[in-house]
């Protein structure tokens, strides 16, 4: 947490920062910063004329604190944020947001850590942002995930219930994700389901795309409110379009060029992964545009079909990942819809052919006489 040296009377507040100095210390020029603001306006689909407003909002005082909670998760979302090769502007923006509590990255441990959380909770009630990573188990009183003797459910009620807003990062926190996969032994659910009263914005995906997380925060800092969301509580700027409709392999889909086997010529030539079970046609996310790891690549770009990870219950509904359609309930795993359909058609034809043969030999059928009604 940096202190300002402007001495304008507000330096008693810890959050008063000299962002330009912090950036300078970390080797980020003013130009880089403005580039970042422009990139953010692009992610959020805002006009370029708003870039100065974004910059001003980021440099202004009074940024909210963040409490980053982690429950049933793989820490992939924290990793996505921290594993950037260089400290990105986005990371610093989150950093200066005062991450008061985060199990993975905080220096404090044990009671000290819990105290930090309680302090923010008390002092900043209704003013901090909660970021939640991981699902919340609610079965058996929520005993399947406890931190410092408190269940995830209780912590979430406490922290998310009193937050200005809660951002769920990753599919588990948004909808239960992998811990909630059938048969969901711990009764895992997403934050909105666990704490229905909380103001929640969902950023699902495995992991969350850091750009989208930072953009959501930037939107909040710039406009003082959360971005518009779709029916599943996801911001439209990031989840408003289907992967399939922005995919770089789409020309091959429309042309009719499909990968039929891994490692084939078609696969190496970047043809469409539709037949390999790609779930891009049913998944809403901006992966093809934002990409991961500082825009290096994304699953379909690197030759693997989309697994639909940003959709609720993806583990149950998008599987099998390497087949286009789900298995038909009640039939063997290898039975496809088409096998069943062909069987049905053949059986129908056979039944009626047999009926036809019998009919042909029954010559004495009589049309109904006298129809008295």
């Amino acid at each position, binding site marked *: 947490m940096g202190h300002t040296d402007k001495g304008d009377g507000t330096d008693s507040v810890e959050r008063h920062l000299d962002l330009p100095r912090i950036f300078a210390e970390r080797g980020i020029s003013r130009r880089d910063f403005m580039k970042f603001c422009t990139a953010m306006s692009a992610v959020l689909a805002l006009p370029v004329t708003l870039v100065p407003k974004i910059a001003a909002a980021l440099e202004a005082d009074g940024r909210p604190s963040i409490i980053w909670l982690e429950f049933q998760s793989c820490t992939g979302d924290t990793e996505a944020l921290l594993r950037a090769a260089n400290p990105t502007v986005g990371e610093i923006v989150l950093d200066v947001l005062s991450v008061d509590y985060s199990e993975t990255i905080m220096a404090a441990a044990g009671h000290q850590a819990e105290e930090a959380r309680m302090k923010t909770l008390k002092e900043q009630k209704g003013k901090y942002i909660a970021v939640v990573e991981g699902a919340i188990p609610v079965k058996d009183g929520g005993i399947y995930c406890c931190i410092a003797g408190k269940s995830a459910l209780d912590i979430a009620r406490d922290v998310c219930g009193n937050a200005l807003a809660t951002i769920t990062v990753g599919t588990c926190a948004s909808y239960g994700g992998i811990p909630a996969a059938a048969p969901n032994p711990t009764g895992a659910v997403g934050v909105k389901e666990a704490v229905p009263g909380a103001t929640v914005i969902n950023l699902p995906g495995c992991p969350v795309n850091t750009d989208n997380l930072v953009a959501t925060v930037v939107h909040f800092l710039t406009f003082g409110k959360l971005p518009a969301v*779709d*029916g599943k509580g996801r911001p*439209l700027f990031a989840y*408003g*379009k*289907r992967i399939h*409709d922005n995919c770089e392999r789409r*020309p*091959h*889909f*429309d*042309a*009719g*060029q*499909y990968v*039929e086997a891994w490692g084939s010529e*078609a696969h190496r030539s970047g*043809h469409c992964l*539709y*037949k390999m079970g790609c*779930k891009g*046609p*049913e998944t*809403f996310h901006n992966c093809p545009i934002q990409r991961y790891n500082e825009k290096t690549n994304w699953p379909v770009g690197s030759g693997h079909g989309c697994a639909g990870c940003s*959709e609720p*219950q993806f583990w*149950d*509904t*998008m599987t099998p990942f390497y087949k*286009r*359609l*789900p298995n*038909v309930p009640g039939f063997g795993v290898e039975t496809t*819809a*088409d096998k*069943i*359909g*062909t069987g*049905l*058609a053949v*059986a*129908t*034809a056979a039944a*009626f052919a047999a*009926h*036809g043969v*019998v*009919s042909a030999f*029954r010559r*004495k*059928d*009589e*049309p*109904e*006489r*006298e*129809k*008295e*009604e």
Partner: protein
Amino acid sequence: MGNLSEKYVWEVPVRVTHWVNMVCILTLSVTGLYIGAPRTLALTPSEYVMGWVRFVHFVAAYAFAISVASRIYWAFRGNRYARWQEFFPILTREGRWHMFETFRYYTFLSRQIPHVTGHNALAGTAYAVVFLLYLVMIVTGFALYAEHAPQGTLHTLVGWMFALFSNQGIRLTHHLTMWLLIAFAIHHVYSAWLMDVKEKGGVMSGMFGGYKSVRERN
């Protein structure tokens, strides 16, 4: 035994929607099969094989939906053979008796060929089920179609589908129901032929010209 005479049974809207439906279902099934299990037919990405197949699917889909909607409208406006009551014989006692008689004939338990002017009771019931399948196809199809514009009007109309069912479930239903319709088509052509030949009812030719032969009472 009564003499056969011609009677105007199937009105124009009934016949037109019938044949539009047939052409559409054929087109939709052929294109749908390709959409479901495409082959690589293009040599360069500048071709548009899947694009055109989907385009034809969607055009036929609109034609089909309009045709089905018109037929449903006609079920309330048309003559007694086109009316909705024809499709639910199960609702009346007499209808149930007809269903039973027809069933006995089709399973060779009876030699009495039931003769009715409109649909026979079993056929009427089957068509009610088929119309249900049509509606399933239309609703699931438009739901899948709406996904390209999740903020669009169409999506608003069918969005409830996604709240009730998983996306993949909708896809699978759309795919499997096609096979039910294909099985129905096989049965349908066969029994229409059977009725034309055996019952001399003229259902098949009737769908072209509108006239069916009816037996006059002595």
